[in-house]
């Protein structure tokens, strides 16, 4: 009799424990699922809140917002052309420098560097990506821009002075700050992105392929050019897009050295502005709803552009299944 009640008690205890287990499990499952969905909610929230905030500007100016160059808080006429132009041109300058240099570094690290130095040089290059952007800004303003103004820009103006087209592109006076300087600083910031992803991609080249090429008496460069680079093409392109995403959206470094001038100049030595620099400089001082809405509209444009670029980057990198930051 006593044994029987013991058994019943045990059975009941086991049933409640099991129930508690199931309840906890379902609670935990829903909790983690909610957290995972919040990631989607954040992106959705960014999109909706920026679209709503930008709506007054889009309603007032329509499509002219994208093509108008004027940016006048007094008459409340706003157009995005100058900042969009500045964003694209600074990023273009940055990529023109960062892509060859970044790929060169990746080739050096995977094919040339002595094994002992490989890791330390790789980490050193990646530290460039770890330095906060405001540090690039303060360094660019106080060290780099004065150097360019005194030594590099006068030389460029002299050098291209007699060449048609190029003398327009490099027309003086040397301000130090401007589109050119911002592009160079962005290039330094983007180099580690391109090089670290390219290195990871190059390392996935099967050794057999390279050995076969060497066996056919290919030189080291021929192996790199005809085996390593074609094998990693999509991955390198993904890394380049990721770097472009950073260059387009970079704020602080650019804000320090761009000059914040709302105009489109042919000369890349002239001051200009970018989307992010305009927002950073003017947002807290913007008076009037239309002014604020126009700045948010700029942010919305930047968000859409970077979203497309980053989505393309991820699509290309997904083939390599790399762990990227």
């Amino acid at each position, binding site marked *: 009799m006593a044994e029987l009640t013991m058994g019943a008690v045990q059975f009941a205890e086991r049933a409640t424990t099991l129930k508690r287990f199931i309840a906890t499990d379902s609670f935990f499952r829903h909790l983690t699922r909610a*957290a995972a969905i919040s*990631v989607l909610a954040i992106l959705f929230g960014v999109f909706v809140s920026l679209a709503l905030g930008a709506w007054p500007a889009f309603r007032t100016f329509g499509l002219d917002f994208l093509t108008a160059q004027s940016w006048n808080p007094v008459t409340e006429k706003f157009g995005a052309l100058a900042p969009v132009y500045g964003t694209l041109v600074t990023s273009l300058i940055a990529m023109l420098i960062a892509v060859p240099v970044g790929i060169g570094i990746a080739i050096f690290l995977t094919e040339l560097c002595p094994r002992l130095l490989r890791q330390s040089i790789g980490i050193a290059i990646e530290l460039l990506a770890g330095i906060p952007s405001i540090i690039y800004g*303060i360094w660019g303003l106080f060290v780099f821009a004065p150097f360019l103004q005194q030594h590099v820009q006068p030389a460029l103006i002299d050098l291209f002075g007699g060449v048609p087209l190029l003398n327009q592109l490099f027309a003086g006076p040397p301000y130090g700050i401007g589109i050119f300087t911002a592009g160079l600083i962005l290039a330094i910031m983007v180099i580690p992105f391109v090089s670290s992803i390219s290195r990871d991609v190059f390392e996935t080249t099967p050794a057999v392929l390279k050995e076969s090429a060497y066996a056919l008496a290919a030189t080291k*460069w021929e192996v790199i050019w005809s085996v390593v680079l074609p094998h990693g093409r999509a991955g390198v392109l993904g890394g380049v897009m990721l770097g472009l995403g950073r260059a387009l959206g970079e704020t*602080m470094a650019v804000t320090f050295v761009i000059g914040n001038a709302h105009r489109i100049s042919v000369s890349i030595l002239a001051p200009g502005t970018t989307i992010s620099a305009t927002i950073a400089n003017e947002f807290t001082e913007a008076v009037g709803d239309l002014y604020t809405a126009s700045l948010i509209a700029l942010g919305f444009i930047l968000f859409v552009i970077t979203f497309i670029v980053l989505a393309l980057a991820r699509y290309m990198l997904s083939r390599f299944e790399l762990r990227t930051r």
Partner: protein
Amino acid sequence: MMSRYSRRLLRSRVWLTFSVGAAAFGLLWLVLILSTLVWNGLAGLSFSVFTEMTPPPGGAGGLLNPIIGSLIITALAVAIGTPVGILAGTYMAEYGRFDRITYAIRFINDILLSAPSIIVGLFVYEILVVPMGHFSGFAGAVALAVIVIPVVVRTTEDMLLLVPNQMREAASALGAPQWFVISRVAYRAAQAGIITGVLLAVARISGETAPLLFTALNNQFWSINLNTPMPSLPVVIFQFALSPYEDWQRLAWTGALLITAAVLSLSVLARTLASKGGER
């Protein structure tokens, strides 16, 4: 025949020299930036930097209030972002490993990971600063938390996926429910990696300026009230560096040195922790 081969060799050498040059070019900037930073930063570094408030133009002072502000905002951002990130990563690696939604979340999370931080600032301005009616340290912390989440999600998921399935199966065979398997087996195995992710996230947000500009704003005075505008080191550097006053510019360099030292040592720490975890 021979001359053709030597021409190919020459071409190879020329290109490889370019590649070595590229590496030297990259390292050159690191050396240049860090050396000017240390040179200018050390010039203004003194004990009073850590004990005195930010000065008015022309006066003497330190960076005590922005340092404290940065610490509070960063700590709160990590406190908000880390649990969300770890839980989301858990869902993606454990409960929903093969769900279709996990693929969508992974894609979106990777985009959030590299989205421009100034956009995050605008977003939090719209959802917190506008409804509250004023800038606040809390809004700044939320903005940084939005940046923490994708970093932690990514590392948590990666690390949990590395845990061998046999360990989970062994625990399940002993009758442990799934939450128990996750919290007592999977989390413990992935511990070092998850901590690395949090450290990386802290390193990432310590230098962030753009999201704080119009959320936490700035404050010339001592402020630990999260409901008011709060000073932070990056924003003060921004303000002081662009000012015409030499004392302020010197303090900006010192602040820049402090931030860089903190960020770089955090990422080195995370890296060593990660490589130790990998060796086991």
